[in-house]
């Protein structure tokens, strides 16, 4: 493992090393190849240029030679002839500047020459010499002179040649050497001047001297040549011009050319031609042959120019190198580097991957080991008895539970047949699930209760297949189901118990139903009887009232002596009769009331009522009666309005009853106090006296029917015994409660409370009752909602009492205008609802029209300005077409839209 890791690291180092090496080699090779390509280009360019220049130089040499021939063929050459001859060359070879004829003048003939010259129009002709500054001096005496005799110049030349006629050229060492060589060898010789003479600023002025000998005289030996020399034809050309012309039309390639004369003393630079491609040709310097040899990049060749050997060295200028620079080596290098890096990266990835895989394998192996271990542990932890059987029922593997229950070791079981071990038989058990699995390759489950096993078992076998799908055996799991069996039995038992209990309940239920049916029947009968009783009371009361009224009228007439005088005794008797008739009448009224209430026929007609005022008004009516008994009645109410929705008539009845009782049962000069108190939830009214009081044991029966107690009545008729019962019923109809407190001998206090209902609830109750009523007979109901606009303003203007009165007035006006069954409710927020029974919406529209007219009329007639301008909002809704319940009815009539 470790060695492998090292190998990996080594390769990680080796690969980039080899990569870099290869990259270096390949890039170098590329460089070389590119370099040689460039060199080839350079060499070709150089060779081509060499040839062009060589041709031009060679033509110049030939030109001079042709002059020699020209001279050789004529005895003497006149200037005009010379000129004509020369002019042809100027045209063809523009590098040529001039041709000269140098005459050899021996010392002996100097005088003659100078005189002849003067005669030719050159008065000051003298043989002269020239220094480097271009100053002429008369030539010192010499054996011979070589003077410029005539000159033919190119049309390009601007030089004043006349000055130099008579100039002894041989005085200039370079020229003289060439002249000597030409004379002695009989061949043209060249002199290239790097120094300037004659005031000519010509770089690389090159002169080819061709010797001309005297016609007809021999010039075979050196002496003869020296002796018979007559002069030289000189051709002047400019090397720069020549090179320029030669290379004209060839695109610049960046080749510098250096011309060297291979002089015996050493190389001498004749001319340096910097490539026009150079950015700064002036600064360029020529490459010496030595330097050239050192540098690998040059090309040179040698050229025979007249008698001299010139070496031309071609070297590339920096611009050439730049131009021909190849990026290929760099590209190669870069690519190599990139590939190496890529390879490294890839390799690293592979290594990483390898590591990961290695780790994964390790982890998987561990997992597998663990899984195997876990499997074994699990296998052994299974509380069921598991073994794995092969096709011949031989036990292959067995778990710990089974070994434990058999109290044996694995060695004693594994390898033996299961039926031998388990059932102690020599053939498989009859319905052995393993055998079934062997037959059909399917899982089987059997309950096995072999007494030999001692336990009831649930045995499942599942087939085990090899990878080819062949059955090789089965997994055999036996579960101890003794606990389950027990639970099962318990369950069966419990189930039975439960069934019995359910049966019992069902039967009890049936029984209750039967009894309830019976009860219901009885109840119906009772109701019927009750109804009969109510009907009876009502009929009887009505039937009794008429004769009583007649009797009362009759007795009154007699008592008032309308029928004639009566005796006092008769009077007293009749008084008694009269009182008892009254009592009977009251009794009948009370009976009627109570029967109505008990029959549920009494419906409250709630209106918004000021409780304080109601109590005050009612109590005040009793002041006279009280005065008769010298009793005092104190009425204690609040100043504020105590608005309640109550049935005024019914509550007045209650109050009257309590007050009459109080007056009746309070002795003379007694005190009676009527008090009203209210809070936000309820109102309480109490009537108390300081009369006889009621004995404690009688208190519970005070509100019972036909109850009378031994109270000392202050004379007058006896009560009916129904009054308080009626009071109780009426208060309870208002959802209130009534109670009595009394201390026997010192006084009694009756008090009742009424819950305050908010107007909305009252509205709803009214509507609900209305709906109930019409729903019973499948009829319609319409609801009109009227709301006083700007009610706050009206209330402010009128004050609460006046507003209340106005509302009640309006209600009254409406009620008077209605000709059908209706219920009106007004609320102290300025809203009024009219419930129209058995009325459709269309009919309600008519009713509303009438109500509107009546109200307008009523309001206009008011003296109060605030009332006059009162306006209403109306809305109608109908049951059951538009709304199904009280809320919908109200919302609809009020125009509330629920989204």
């Amino acid at each position, binding site marked *: 493992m470790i060695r492998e890791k090292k190998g990996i690291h080594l390769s990680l180092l080796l690969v980039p090393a080899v990569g870099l090496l290869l990259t270096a080699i390949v890039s170098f090779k590329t460089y070389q190849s590119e370099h040689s390509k460039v060199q080839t280009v350079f060499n070709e360019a150089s060779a081509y240029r060499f040839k062009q220049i060589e041709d031009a130089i060679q033509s110049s040499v030939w030109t001079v030679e042709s002059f020699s021939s020209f001279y050789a063929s004529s005895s003497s050459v006149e200037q005009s002839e010379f000129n004509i001859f020369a002019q042809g060359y100027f045209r063809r070879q523009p590098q040529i500047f001039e041709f000269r004829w140098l005459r050899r003048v021996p010392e002996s003939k100097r005088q003659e020459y100078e005189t002849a010259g003067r005669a030719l129009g050159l008065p000051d002709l003298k043989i002269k010499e020239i220094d480097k500054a271009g100053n002429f001096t008369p030539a010192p005496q010499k054996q011979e002179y070589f003077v410029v005799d005539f000159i033919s110049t190119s049309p390009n030349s601007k030089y004043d040649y006349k000055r130099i006629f008579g100039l002894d050229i041989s005085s200039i060492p370079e020229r003289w050497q060439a002249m000597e060589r030409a004379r002695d060898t009989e061949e043209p010789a060249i002199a290239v001047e790097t120094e300037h003479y004659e005031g000519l600023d010509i770089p690389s002025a090159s002169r080819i001297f061709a010797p001309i000998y005297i016609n007809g005289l021999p010039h075979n030996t050196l002496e003869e040549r020296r002796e018979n020399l007559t002069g030289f034809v000189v051709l002047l050309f400019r090397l720069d011009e020549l090179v320029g012309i030669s290379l004209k039309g060839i695109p610049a390639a960046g080749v510098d050319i250096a011309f060297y004369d291979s002089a015996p003393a050493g190389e001498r630079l004749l001319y340096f031609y910097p490539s026009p491609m150079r950015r700064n040709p002036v600064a360029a310097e020529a490459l010496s042959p030595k330097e050239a040899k050192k540098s690998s990049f040059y090309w040179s060749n040698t050229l025979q120019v007249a008698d001299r050997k010139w070496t031309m060295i071609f070297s590339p200028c920096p611009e050439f190198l730049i131009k021909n620079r190849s990026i290929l080596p760099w590209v190669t290098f870069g690519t190599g580097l990139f590939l190496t890096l890529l390879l490294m990266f890839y390799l690293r990835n592979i290594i990483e991957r390898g590591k990961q895989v290695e780790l994964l394998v390790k982890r998987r192996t561990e997992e597998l080991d663990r899984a195997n271990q876990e499997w074994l542990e699990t296998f052994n932890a299974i509380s069921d008895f598991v073994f794995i059987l092969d096709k011949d029922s031989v036990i292959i593997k067995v778990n710990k539970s089974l070994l434990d229950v058999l109290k044996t070791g694995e060695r004693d079981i594994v390898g033996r047949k299961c039926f031998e071990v388990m059932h102690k038989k020599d053939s498989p058990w009859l319905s052995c699930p393993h055998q079934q699995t062997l037959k059909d390759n399917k899982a089987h489950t059997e309950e096995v209760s072999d007494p030999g096993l001692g336990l009831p078992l649930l045995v499942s076998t599942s087939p085990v297949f090899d990878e080819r799908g062949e059955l090789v055996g089965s997994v055999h799991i036996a579960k101890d189901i003794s606990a389950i069996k027990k639970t099962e039995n318990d369950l069966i038992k419990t189930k039975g118990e439960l069934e019995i209990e359910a049966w019992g309940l069902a039967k*009890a239920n049936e029984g209750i139903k039967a009894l309830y049916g019976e009860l219901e029947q009885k109840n119906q009968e009772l109701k019927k009887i009750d109804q009969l009783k109510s009907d009876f009371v009502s009929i009887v009361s009505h039937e009794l009232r008429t004769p009583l009224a007649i009797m009362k009228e009759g007795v009154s007439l007699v008592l008032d002596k309308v029928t004639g005088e009566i005796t006092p005794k008769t009077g007293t008797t009749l008084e008694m009769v009269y009182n008892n008739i009254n009592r009977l009448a009251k009794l009948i009224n009370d009976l009627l009331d109570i029967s109505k209430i008990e029959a549920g026929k009494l419906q409250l007609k709630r209106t918004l009522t000021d409780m304080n005022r109601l109590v005050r008004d009612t109590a005040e009516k009793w002041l006279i009666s009280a005065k008769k008994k010298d009793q005092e009645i104190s009425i204690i109410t609040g100043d504020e309005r105590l608005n309640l929705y109550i049935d005024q008539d019914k509550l007045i009845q209650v109050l009257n009853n309590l007050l009459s009782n109080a007056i009746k049962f309070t002795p003379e000069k007694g005190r009676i106090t009527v008090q009203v108190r209210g809070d936000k939830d309820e109102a309480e009214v109490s009537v108390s006296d300081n009369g006889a009081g009621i004995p404690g044991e009688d208190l519970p029966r005070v509100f019972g029917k036909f109850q009378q107690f031994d109270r000392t009545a202050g004379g007058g008729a006896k009560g009916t015994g129904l009054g308080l019962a009626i009071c109780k019923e009426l208060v309870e109809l208002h959802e209130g409660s009534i109670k009595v407190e009394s201390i026997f001998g010192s006084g009694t206090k009756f008090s009742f409370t009424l819950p305050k209902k908010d107007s909305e609830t009252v509205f709803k109750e009214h509507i609900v009752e209305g709906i109930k009523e019409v729903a019973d007979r499948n009829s319609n109901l319409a609801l009109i909602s009227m709301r006083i606009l700007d009610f706050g303003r009206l209330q402010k203007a009128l004050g609460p009492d006046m507003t209340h009165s106005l509302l009640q007035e309006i209600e009254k006006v409406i009620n008077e205008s209605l000709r059908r069954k209706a219920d009106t409710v007004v609320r102290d927020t300025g809203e009024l609802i009219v419930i129209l029974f058995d009325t459709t919406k269309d009919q309600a529209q008519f009713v509303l029209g009438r109500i509107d007219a009546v109200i307008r009329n009523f309001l206009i007639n008011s003296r109060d300005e605030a009332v006059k301008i009162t306006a209403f909002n109306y809305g109608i809704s109908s049951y059951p077409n538009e709304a199904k319940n009280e809320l919908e009815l109200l919302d609809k009539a009020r125009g509330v839209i629920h989204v």
Partner: protein
Amino acid sequence: MLKKILLIEDSIASADFISKALESEGYEISVAKNGADGFQKAIGNGFDLVIIDIVLPDINGLEVCREIKSKLAKNSPKVIALTGIVDAIDAVAARRAGADDFCVKTKDMLSLIEAVKKHI
């Protein structure tokens, strides 16, 4: 042949009423006034059905039921336990005692008659 019913009921009024009602339905009725008498009659006379009032002067009606059922085992007649007071606990007890049905006494005895019709 008329189906035979034994009624074990101590209240004479009830017994009369029930007897008449069942006779009018076409059953032959015998009446026993107490538990001991009822048991004796029940085991000897091959009744198809025995109606037992739970409350008897001598033995608990359910006890009689249990005795009959255990004595006659498979040949036992059907038994209806009769009660004046409905109680689920009694119903369960009746079932445990082997009663086949449990009926409440009503004035019309309709539920009893229905039960009888159901069982025989």
